[in-house]
């Protein structure tokens, strides 16, 4: 579980998102990729968006950055970043925020650095573009950050090309690049998925310590619940474009309430604990098509508890306890331990 809070719950949020929806025009109709998602992050806080592939977590992050593909339409009642309404900014104003006050780290460090430029040039460029100043100033900042992220020989590293570095080093460089302008918010989209396990831990620890030091808000997008447990203060579990459960990571991990969250937690192998005869949990079925009108609960076709109303009723988020809510028609007691083996 995540350790002590590194953020002050009374701080005003850096990013506040309310009812964010993304619709994508496809030949068959309109695909509701993200459906009324709301969340907020404070300085120093880590929010994790969790869910399986295609649940809309990456689209959500692209929507915040306003980098959605052309066919996608964004709507939200609120996307406030640091007092500014992101949805109302012009493309030019938005470009000034990107990489400057909001940083984004992508999944595959092997391809997210431009192969024809030296690392140093890429780091300096982003600084020069947003902060101005001289090349020497930018170079000093780059060297300072590389030392900060534990790179032994910064001056020399900066003269190398991306392909001369290992995956872990490249991801460190991406992180350094995003820190060049001292952003308030970092969005990390599966930052460790392409790395091997030992490097994953290092990168996560690095992100965590940098976040504390620079008091950045972090939105961590992942499908890996181990990563969430290690990193997140708050969790929003997404399924089929909706947040199905959200709360502090302690609450969500201790009392997972939505059947989907419980299913996800059962899918984690516990080495040594489970005997070979204990099968690893799985959630049967596939994610429903999100094209066209969506009625009722999106999880009903895979849910052990589904009943008649699930297909028709409006299912909203409701509280389990303070600050912990879930999207299901059944009361939380239904899922109390031991009853799970129903169906």
């Amino acid at each position, binding site marked *: 579980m995540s350790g002590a809070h590194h953020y002050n719950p009374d701080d005003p949020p850096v990013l506040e998102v309310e009812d964010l929806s993304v619709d994508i025009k496809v030949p068959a109709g309109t695909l509701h990729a993200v459906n009324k998602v709301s969340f907020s992050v404070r300085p120093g806080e880590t929010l994790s968006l969790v869910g399986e592939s295609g649940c809309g977590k990456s689209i959500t992050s692209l929507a915040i*950055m306003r*980098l959605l593909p*052309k066919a996608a339409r964004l709507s939200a009642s609120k996307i406030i970043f640091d007092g500014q309404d992101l949805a109302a900014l012009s493309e*030019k104003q938005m*470009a*000034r*925020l*990107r*990489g*400057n006050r909001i*940083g*984004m780290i*992508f*999944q*595959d460090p*092997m*391809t*997210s*650095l*431009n*192969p*024809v*430029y030296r690392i140093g040039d890429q780091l300096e*460029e*982003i600084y020069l*573009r*947003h902060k101005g100043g001289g090349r020497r100033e930018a170079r000093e900042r780059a060297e300072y950050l590389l030392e900060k992220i534990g790179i*032994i*020989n910064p001056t*020399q590293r900066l003269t*190398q*090309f*991306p*392909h*001369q*570095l*290992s995956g872990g080093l490249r991801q460190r460089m*991406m992180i350094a*690049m*995003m820190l060049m302008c001292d952003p308030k918010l970092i969005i990390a989209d599966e930052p460790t998925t392409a790395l091997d396990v030992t490097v994953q831990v290092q990168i996560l620890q690095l992100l965590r310590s940098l976040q504390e030091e620079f008091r950045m808000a972090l939105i961590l997008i992942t499908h890996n619940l181990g990563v969430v447990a290690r990193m997140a203060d708050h969790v929003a579990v997404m399924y089929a474009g909706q947040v199905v459960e959200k709360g502090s990571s302690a609450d969500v991990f201790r009392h997972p309430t939505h059947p989907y969250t419980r299913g996800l937690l059962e899918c984690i192998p516990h080495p040594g604990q489970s005997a070979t005869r204990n099968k690893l949990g799985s959630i049967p079925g596939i994610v429903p098509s999100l094209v066209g009108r969506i009625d009722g609960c999106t999880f009903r076709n895979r849910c052990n508890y589904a009943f008649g109303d699930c297909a028709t009723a409006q299912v909203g988020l409701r509280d389990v306890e303070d600050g912990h809510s879930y999207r299901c028609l059944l009361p939380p007691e239904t899922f109390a331990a031991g009853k799970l083996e129903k169906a």
Partner: protein
Amino acid sequence: MTDATQTAADAKRRDSASDFDTLAPSPRELMRRRACSHWGLIIGLSIIAIFLLVAIFAGVLAPHDPYAQTLSHRLADPVWGPKGSWNHILGTDALGRDVLSRLMYGARLSLYISFTAALIAAVIGVSLGIAGGYFGGKIDSLVVYIINVKLALPVFLVALSIAAITGGTVTVMILLLGFLTWDRYAIVTRSLTQQMRDQDFIMSSLAAGSSHMRIIFRDILPNLMNHIIVIVSLDMAVIILIEAALSFLGLGIRPPTPSWGLMISEARAMMFFKPHLIMVPGIAIFILVMAINMAGDGIRDVTAPEGRG
């Protein structure tokens, strides 16, 4: 182990690790190594360099004025012929002009026309290709349409008719050939840009606040450069051939300008009596075109065996 020795050992291990991966040669170094063992590239580039030097210093190197007619010395044998002399190493043509000098000035013309025309074609083709590949949608449809129209044009027929109407000045030739050979650039850069557009570094550049123009010029264009250089070389070879052919047909460069195609054309009448008058410029065209192709292939082999990623 005490803490101090532990950290010392750690530091040493990390240092040796960093030594280890700095052993990997830089891409430029790798390319240099590949280039040095690529005979096609070396030979091609050397021949081009020789032609280039001759073209640049034609004024100094040429033994005679390429336009000066000495009717008393017309149709002189080359130095290896029965009545050859070192005064006219490659002999003289029907008007008594020194063939070697005309050949040298002709190299200047061929290289000048082919290079500038290839550059014009590159600018047109690459702009269209990147625009279509990067923006997609309607812009791409338009680009594809323009490319198709261009591909449907019979190059030679159009070149012949326009050259015939406007008269063959060097400028007309350059513009004509530039506007008639850009399709290859457009097709190649369009598909490469399409592949590149979906790569993460474009998205991360966008996420770092780059504008589309910046991405095109700073991220995409440098990654296309290797391919563009290869196409320029192939295109230059094609242009040299078309220019020679047009001049040969009397629709390209006008006499008395020394052009290789024109030299062949003018020597037609003497073909059976002084075959060297046709063979010498013919061989020059052959060697230069072959050298450019060898160099182009070489550049491709050297720069793009594994991409630069």
